[in-house]
């Protein structure tokens, strides 16, 4: 079991599961097409970005409960900065939000390292703090988003010279996600920093002996998580056109997707692709339930139960792993 989850087999399995679910969707709803895929991608985008951030800290042996609250801060900051701003100013707003995300994450990490309070307690306290910050910035949903930014994630891909029928199937949200993850995570994964993330998550003692400075590496992991949370917050604003100060249900969903994606709670194992696929699996299940005209609230219960079951299963595996 552990070997299966550790290897690529698990990721491939998730991809197959996702494909089957999409086929099932088509069977349920014969006119499921580009717009359906676009909806799926758009709703999955914030979840996926939160999950990538969470996966990175979990790989580095931590957890960040404040991920959804940081997304809220990023979302309202972006919406407030872009409200009525020109396209050029909006670029700076986006950059500022990304920097803010890095800063929030780094602060989480630094507090963990400096106070020596366990990560789960620090990020719980910071969850409240970031919630408060988001409410202070924007008391109720509002603000705006630059149209070009919204266009990045909404609709199907159109390429000049290629008939839309070929490209409209590919949602822009997926492309956005792929570009962002490729631009941020791949360079880290390839560099020594990425190795260090895995090293401190796998065995901090051995990492220290191999010459890794554990504290700064941990802060860096939280900072990258903050960056992805900021991207997630931006994607919320991109999808809705406004800033949302109340954190969405991204925390539990991201933990569940991380576990379902084959990243072991406790650190050191897994990748980013698995959790992203897991997000799409969970979102597709949700969509199928809706298409089957299940009461959306019942769908929410089913989804929540699946997530809790997944996390429980992951905890059992992690305990087994520690004992073995």
């Amino acid at each position, binding site marked *: 079991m552990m070997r299966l989850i550790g290897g690529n087999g698990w990721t491939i399995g998730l991809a197959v599961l996702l494909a089957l679910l999409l086929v099932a969707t088509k069977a349920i709803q014969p006119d499921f097409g580009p717009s359906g895929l676009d909806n799926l991608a758009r709703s999955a985008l914030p979840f996926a970005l939160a999950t990538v951030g969470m996966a990175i800290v979990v790989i580095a042996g931590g957890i960040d409960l404040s991920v959804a609250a940081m997304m809220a801060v990023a979302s309202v900051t972006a919406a407030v900065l872009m409200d009525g701003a020109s396209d050029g100013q909006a670029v700076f707003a986006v950059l500022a939000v990304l920097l803010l995300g890095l800063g929030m994450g780094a602060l989480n990490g630094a507090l963990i390292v400096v106070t020596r309070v366990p990560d789960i307690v620090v990020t719980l306290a910071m969850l409240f703090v970031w919630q408060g910050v988001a409410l202070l910035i924007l008391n109720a949903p509002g603000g705006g988003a630059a149209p070009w930014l919204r266009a990045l994630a909404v609709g199907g891909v159109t390429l000049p010279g290629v008939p839309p029928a070929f490209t409209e199937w590919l949602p822009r949200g997926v492309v956005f996600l792929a570009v962002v993850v490729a631009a941020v995570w791949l360079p880290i994964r390839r560099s020594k920093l990425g190795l260090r993330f895995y090293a401190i998550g796998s065995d901090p003692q051995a990492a220290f002996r191999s010459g890794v400075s554990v504290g700064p590496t941990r802060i860096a992991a939280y900072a990258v998580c903050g960056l992805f949370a900021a991207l997630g917050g931006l994607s919320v604003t991109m999808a809705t056109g406004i800033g949302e100060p109340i954190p969405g249900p991204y925390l539990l969903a991201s933990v569940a997707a991380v576990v379902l994606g084959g990243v072991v709670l406790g650190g050191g194992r897994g990748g980013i692709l698995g959790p992203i696929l897991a997000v799409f699996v969970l979102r597709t299940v949700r969509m199928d339930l809706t298409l089957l005209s299940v009461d959306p*609230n019942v769908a929410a219960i089913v989804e929540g139960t699946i997530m809790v079951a997944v996390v429980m299963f992951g905890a059992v595996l992690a305990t087994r792993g520690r004992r073995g």
Partner: protein
Amino acid sequence: MTSATTDAPLARLGRLMVDNPLLPLVVLLFALIGVLALLNPAILSMFWASNTLKIAIPLAMLAACQTLTMLTGGIDLSAGTAATVAAYVTATATPLIGAPGAIGIAMTCALAIGMVNGVGVAFARVHPLIMTLGTGLIATGCLLVYQRSVISTGTEYPALLVWLGTGRTLGLPNGLALFIPFAILILWAQRRSGFGRLLYAIGSNEAAARLSGVRVWQVHLALYSLSGVIAGLTGLLYLGMVKTASLSLALPLDLPSVAAAVIGGTSIFGGRGGYGGTILGALILTVLATMLTLLQMPEGGRRILYGAIILAVTALYIRLTDRG
């Protein structure tokens, strides 16, 4: 790390807080009341004192869930939801089947939430924070579904609960009639019952408790079930107090209940603290809330403050116990 000059007073403060954990809290409480008197002398009155007590009672009861679970190194973030579920079910089922039946069903629901938490923590060994967050989410979903089915029945509040929640006798809130026996029971149990001892033992050193023959899962299962029952009871009282059945009824108590336990000196890592401090913590937070209202502090600012208090107090305890 720190110089000798700051060392001595800190260590002395640590001793003081460990030996007489309640003394600094009493001082703090009266200091806050003093500040309040300076801000607005007219506010202090018998009525104000009685009102403060009334508001503090549900908070202190919900904080009992946090105190008991925190003694073992856990937490119960579903307590607020369990309280809301109990309150909502009571209010909507009373017109259909009468108060006793409704209350019975409501308490069963709260117990069920607690038992699910208990199973997850005891057997799957999920971190209580994640587990209780998950059940809270699922329970909220169930409540939404339930709401649909009872939307037409209307609501009714059992007279006993209204009497407890809003009535006064000799100038004192009737809620004390429930709270005083409740508090005495908890205070007795934490000192003089085998179960209470085991909570401290598990929080202090789970491995040592196991080696002494304690079957830790039994304690976890019973503890989280008890926590659910206490949360349900709080919900009933709160329902009588606010006399509105809403889906976010006990939500404003969620975060303060954690803060009250932490301020009261219960260590979030377990093994230290007790309910006496939590009661004072709830009073302190209630007075603080009056003050923040007086200062027109927005909701966001309050959340930041609560988060900062939790983090600062926890970090301080780590410092103090490291030196001990």
